């Protein structure tokens, strides 16, 4: 997982070059002194767009902050440095019967990055966001001060920093509340649905009794098949079996052109929907393939070729979710560019804690598109308009192109947030949207 040379983001978009890189490995040390250029923390580079990039500025690489500080195995409270990966955290706490209460779709993110993007997981409808389980953290500011933040202590700094995209300073130390589990197994169902209406019905049935729910949608389908997909639901459960092998596959190099195109997309989506495993009940999964399916293929982002890809994730309010999503899927289907990985999920009703937190009540749709230049950007702009008129929002962690006007409509608290931005910190994203 070592990064060398110029740090990039996961989507390979946009191209940025930092003018300086500082390795942060001592949580007690002050930030690099008076810097001529703005700083930004860079964890494991799994944000898709430019929230983790700082063109012309300085990146503070935080993977050296990877120490555990304290683990109360009775209370399930873990204290660690902010550069610890979720994967390493799980490896430590799972054998003791604990698990992160919220985890994103990849375990290759740092704890600091999980806070800065206030990530969510397949259990948002019950567990809320990552920030709902953060007990406290230390925020290092460029003026040398260190602010201890929790929902009660310096609560204004807490709400600015969770989901604050690393702009309020460097998160150095974190204390998290974990949840009990009986082991590494998850038990549940995989169910086909024929259209969006059936998705909403399945979700309504499942969200009370299943901790993890999410659906894959066939984005190549059109006409009466539009909105069909596979719904997955599961709960942590006792079980037995062999642990799956770790990282058996890798994409060793970037092919000269994207392997994702109209033909492979249609083929993949057809096969994925029709495969026998798509409709099974009472299945036992290991948590890794269930929660982190793509972590099994190292460097999977390379299949999109040297031009990279765009992720698009939005949330739209429940009341207008069905027509809005119908329209989006229609647009995507008509564009012919499709999407390899389309994920649908109903968020819960918990109140977001961060000024810029993305997850909010409603339904979220995540899509990704190979970067084909102007046509792709036009499609994404059209999706923004649908999100906008629905009163929704687009997820900064996955964005590389939304306009300043859109951002400011999606996140009306941005002005209030801007007052908390460290004067020495900035990012390519922040300069783009403000």
């Amino acid at each position, binding site marked *: *997982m*070592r990064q*060398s*040379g110029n740090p990039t983001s996961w989507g390979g978009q946009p191209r940025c070059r930092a003018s300086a*890189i*500082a*390795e942060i*490995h*001592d*949580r*007690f040390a002050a930030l690099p002194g008076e810097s001529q250029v703005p700083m930004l923390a860079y964890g494991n580079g799994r944000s898709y767009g430019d929230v983790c990039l700082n063109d012309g500025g300085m990146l503070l690489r935080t993977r*050296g902050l990877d*120490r*555990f*500080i*304290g*683990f109360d195995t009775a209370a399930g409270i873990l204290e660690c440095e902010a550069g610890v990966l979720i994967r390493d955290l799980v490896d*430590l706490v799972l054998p003791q019967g604990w698990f992160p209460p919220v985890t994103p779709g990849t375990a290759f993110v740092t704890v600091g990055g999980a806070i800065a993007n206030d990530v969510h997981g397949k259990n948002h409808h019950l567990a809320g966001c990552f920030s709902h389980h953060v007990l406290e953290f230390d925020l290092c500011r460029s003026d040398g001060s260190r602010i201890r933040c929790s929902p009660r202590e310096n609560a204004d700094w807490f709400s600015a920093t969770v989901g604050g995209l690393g702009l309020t300073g460097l998160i150095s130390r974190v204390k998290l509340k974990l949840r009990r589990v009986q082991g590494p197994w998850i038990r549940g169902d995989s169910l086909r649905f024929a259209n969006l209406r059936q998705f909403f019905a399945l979700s309504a049935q499942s969200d009370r009794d299943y901790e993890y729910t999410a659906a894959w949608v066939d984005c190549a389908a059109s006409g009466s098949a539009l909105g069909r997909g596979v719904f997955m639901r599961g709960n942590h459960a006792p079980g037995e079996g062999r642990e799956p092998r770790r990282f058996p596959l890798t994409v060793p190099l970037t092919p000269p052109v994207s392997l994702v195109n109209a033909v492979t997309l249609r083929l993949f989506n057809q096969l994925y929907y029709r495969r026998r495993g798509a409709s099974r009940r009472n299945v036992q999964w290991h948590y890794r393939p269930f929660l982190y399916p793509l972590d099994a293929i190292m460097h999977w982002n390379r299949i999109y070729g040297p031009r990279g890809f765009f992720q698009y994730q939005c949330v739209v309010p429940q009341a207008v979710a069905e027509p809005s999503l119908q329209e989006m899927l229609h647009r995507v289907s008509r564009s012919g560019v499709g999407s390899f990985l389309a994920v649908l999920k109903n968020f819960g009703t918990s109140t977001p804690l961060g000024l810029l937190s993305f997850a909010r009540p409603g339904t979220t749709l995540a899509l990704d598109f190979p970067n084909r230049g102007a046509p792709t950007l036009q499609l994404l702009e059209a999706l923004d308009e649908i999100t906008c008129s629905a009163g929704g929002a687009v997820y900064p962690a996955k964005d590389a192109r939304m306009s300043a006007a859109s951002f400011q409509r999606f996140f009306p608290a941005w002005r209030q947030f801007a007052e908390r931005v460290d004067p020495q910190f900035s990012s390519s994203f922040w300069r783009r949207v403000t």
Partner: protein
Amino acid sequence: MRRLLIVGGTSAIAEATAREFAARGDSLCLVGRSRERLQAIADDLKIRGADVVTVFCLDVRDISAYEAMLDAASRSLDGLDGALIAHGTLSDQQACERSVDVMLDEIQVNALSVMALCTLLANRFAAQRRGVIAVISSVAGDRGRGSNYVYGAAKAAVTAFTSGLRQRLRPHGVSVLTVKPGFVDTPMTAAFKKGFLWAAPRTVAKEIAAAMLDGAPVIYTPGFWRPIMWVIRSIPESVFRRLSL
């Protein structure tokens, strides 16, 4: 390696190696300059499975303090089964060229202190008739190069010293391991542009831990440095002196 002393405990390679031993449930004594940083690493190693972890503050320039440090380390772990000597600085070659004092300080930290420690450890381990002494040398010690020959000379001294020590201690049941890392991505090398030859500390650490447990004599880590250095050593001096490496 039930009870291991690590000198230079805050170095990235040392810390990564300590994690390998911590995962096995071993005990460690970490020696370094900053108590705060040593304690942060000690806390982490405990959580990762280490049995006992103690820390001791020492500047390796203070050779007169070594005996007391070894006594304290041995007491704190109830004896020692092995030692990893991992401290060092990457010399600023140009500063070493300008100043004799800077040059001598580099030799002091990277060579003399290591030889002094090895001497004391050798006598202790020989007396108990077992033990492993592992020393981080460098591929830079295989041949002096214009761009960093002061560092290279110090590491060459360490390589030759440990080679002799290995012969001397073999009959006493003590093994000596000379570790020659290539380019490792650590804070010490933060200023360098990284290419495909660079390795992560964790990769190097796994190989060091395995070699210590095996009682291996010399390792290049990652292993591809062995043929590379063979080639570098084989270049005739008439050619080598014209190269800029």
